[in-house]
């Protein structure tokens, strides 16, 4: 399995896929940060017009001021995790890039036929599956950290005065975020291993990571079964909750997010593994 991992990481680092993904993330985060600057100046102008804020104010009272306004608008004084969510998580760059990257990474191996070279020297496909899951997991953590660093760097450069989130809150948010994204990726891996079709896989990745399927399901449930709790079982609900930071996580409940995330990861992990075991490689 070490050999398979070495092969996968070599391809990840030598190929263009990861570089392109990172460039897209940098561009999207830069764009989000730019938007934040714009929103911030608008909000400030609004506050000045209301007479609730003087231009030079950079003290404790500013947080009170922002709280009294819609939480979306003012950035200065908001905490780090809240800022993260506004700019990249719910904003989507990390999840979109990760989902598409993971999908492409695995589907190309089948699409171009290189998988034949791999399976013909290792008849045991368990190790293959494990190595792919590990690569995707490592990729998720690496890109999460990367976008956090980049977002906070952007905030610092633009002079947003963010309140540091406590470390424990960071850890919880990071773990839940990783879990939910990882579950998404396992759904897509299963899709790839079942269909072995690049076009279908990419469409699935886009529909999932842009939240199109999630929104559709949520709408369906609220329309057909108003008041039902089923929506909690959708991975998208957990995704949005984590995307809303501490408040979102509290509202949905930590256990719900953990259960849903793990359940999806497990079910689709097993489905993908069975498909890999059973299906012939051409």
């Amino acid at each position, binding site marked *: 399995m070490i*050999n398979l991992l070495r092969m996968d990481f070599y*391809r990840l680092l030598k*190929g263009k896929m990861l570089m392109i993904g990172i460039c897209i993330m940098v561009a999207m985060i830069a764009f989000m940060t730019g938007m934040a600057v714009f929103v911030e100046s608008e909000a400030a102008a609004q506050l000045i017009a209301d007479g609730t804020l003087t231009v030079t104010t950079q003290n404790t009272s500013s947080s009170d001021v922002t709280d009294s306004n819609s939480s979306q608008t003012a950035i200065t004084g908001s905490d780090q995790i809240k800022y993260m969510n506004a700019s990249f998580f719910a904003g989507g760059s990390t999840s979109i890039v990760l989902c598409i990257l993971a999908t492409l990474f695995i589907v190309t191996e089948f699409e171009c*036929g*290189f*998988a034949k*070279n791999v399976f013909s020297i290792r*008849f*045991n496909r368990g190790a293959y599956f494990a190595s792919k899951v590990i690569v995707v997991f490592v990729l998720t953590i690496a890109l999460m950290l990367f976008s956090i660093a980049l977002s906070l760097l952007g905030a610092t450069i633009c002079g947003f005065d963010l309140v540091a989130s406590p470390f424990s809150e960071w850890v919880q948010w990071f773990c839940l975020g990783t879990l939910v994204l990882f579950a998404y990726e396992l759904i897509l891996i299963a899709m790839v291993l079942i269909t072995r079709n690049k076009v279908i896989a990419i469409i699935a990745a886009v529909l999932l990571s842009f939240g199109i399927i999630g929104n559709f399901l949520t709408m369906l449930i609220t329309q057909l079964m108003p008041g039902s709790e089923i929506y909690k079982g959708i991975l998208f609900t957990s995704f949005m909750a984590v995307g809303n930071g501490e408040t979102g996580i509290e509202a949905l409940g930590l256990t719900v997010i953990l259960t849903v995330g793990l359940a999806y990861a497990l079910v689709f992990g097993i489905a993908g593994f069975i498909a890999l075991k059973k299906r*012939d490689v051409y």
Partner: protein
Amino acid sequence: MNIVETHMLSKRYGAKAAVTAFNMQVHSGDIYGFVGRNGAGKSTVMKMLSGLATPTSGEIKLFNKSIRHASGEQKLGILIENPGLYPSMSAYDNLMLKCLCAGTVNPKKTTNQLLDFVGLANVDKKQSKHFSMGMKQRLGLALALVGDPQLLLLDEPLNGLDPEGVREIRQLIIKLNEEHGLTVIISSHVLEQLGKMANRYGIIRDGQMVCEITAEEVTAQCSEYLHLETNDANKALVIMQEKFPNLKCIAMPQNAIRIQGFANAALIGEAMSHAGIAVSALYTHNRDIEDFFVEKMGGN
């Protein structure tokens, strides 16, 4: 020793049986020509041998071990249907990936050696999608050679090569077989090309093994009859019946006689001249090898 052995191997795709009760034996050191018409099941057999496709039923033994319980790295190199290259990566990177996968001790060195061996040493950073068909086949062969395989499964490896390329690759295959002791199973539609390499053949028809046969047996089976032309066919026939009652003689037009059975041309010639018959032609007629195969493969 048998390197490959299959027993009642079958593969169904839905209702369609691609391979049925297929028995194959490839000996160590063989260059085994695997022939059959389009859709006969050659690729399907090769995919099952290399663990890519799961048999519906039957048994496969590689190196005397059932592949059901295979674990670890297989000493197997394949080039089946297409070389399976990452299109946006160079020949070097494609080979590096396979070397890493196979756990090759010195991947960079091996990669460079293999590029050299198949004649792709100077393609540099060119992406494999810009390769010619022949270059892709060469890289495919190099990929198959990663990990020091003892058995090569090559499905139509000469496809898309120009005559010179065909010759080079054929020589590479022979070299691998003779100098490195690799056993090779090679399928091709072009029987003439196989004829220059193979020492044994397996003929598959509608998913079943028609026969396994050595190259010598093919030659023997194809040397069909003696052709005798004399100035007096009737007298010659009488002499033949007298002296060689076991041989079957058929009178042909233009004073020719076709002699079937294990005939000794020298003795017949002697008998004719002894009887004062002038022989204008006496030769072994070889049946076209291609005809022989086409007939076995179920052609028309």
